[in-house]
């Protein structure tokens, strides 16, 4: 963890990410106005996950962090997935 490895993200790149996030937001609104049934929830959540990924990777600098932070993030997300997965295992097959 040496101090000189701090990566600086340029203003242009950040603005680019912001534009992509706005486009994805518009896409979510458009896709949920169409009648897709249950598929609507899955599509909206998939786009939300993509947006979250961009925010974490670039705005929160995770793309440029070391292994430890990335693994910890992975662990936190897996824990959340286990919570949600096991709850639905109960709720769906009760």
């Amino acid at each position, binding site marked *: 963890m040496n101090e000189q490895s701090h990566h600086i993200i340029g203003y242009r790149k*950040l603005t680019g990410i*912001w534009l992509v996030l706005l486009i994805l*937001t518009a896409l979510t609104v458009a896709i949920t106005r169409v009648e897709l049934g249950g598929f609507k929830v899955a599509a909206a959540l998939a786009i939300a996950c993509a947006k979250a990924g961009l925010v974490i990777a670039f*705005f929160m600098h995770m793309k440029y962090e070391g292994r430890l932070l990335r693994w910890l993030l992975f662990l936190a997300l897996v824990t959340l997935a286990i919570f949600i997965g096991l709850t*639905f295992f109960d*709720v769906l097959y009760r």
Partner: protein
Amino acid sequence: MIHPEHKDYFGSKLGMWLFLFTELLLFGGLFLLYAVYLKRYPHEFATAGRQLDPVMGATNTVILLTSSLSAAMAVTAAQHGETRRVLAMIGGTILCAAGFMAIKYFEWSAKIGHGIYPGSEQLKSGPPGESVFFSLYYITTGIHGLHVVIGALLLAWIAHKAGSGEVNASDYILLENGALYWHLVDLIWIFIFPLYYLVL
């Protein structure tokens, strides 16, 4: 005798991320409740969810995404040592936070004006699924709104430190952690917006 101040850059950041993970699990629990009750009351959730205004929700989404951009730019400016730009960018983020809370205020007061709030007569006499939806709506957006206020106050304090030179190009971890907290607020809203305003 003056001791040289010990700074642990990585330790500070690790601590912030660990805290953010607990926040993730807090909101994860609320989303889990939403998912389970959506499965139990799909029709009631649809009727209730369509009463929310997607235009206000979308406006707040754009505001928060912009505030996050501003916060991320503040960190870049600090790394370049551009103090005035740091202050301008944090100012932008705080302005967005105020706009977000103003819209939230209009949304909540319109709903409360129509007799829709936890424990109201109208919800008590209606189907149970709708009252569950609005309880979850108020608690989730309420806790999120609290985070917006705390984040804005935190950033205002950090801006004060940046103005006095305590946050600078060689020591900006405070700003970086404040921005991380702010991005979490944005991150949570990225999921609240489609789930409460769009998919129902």
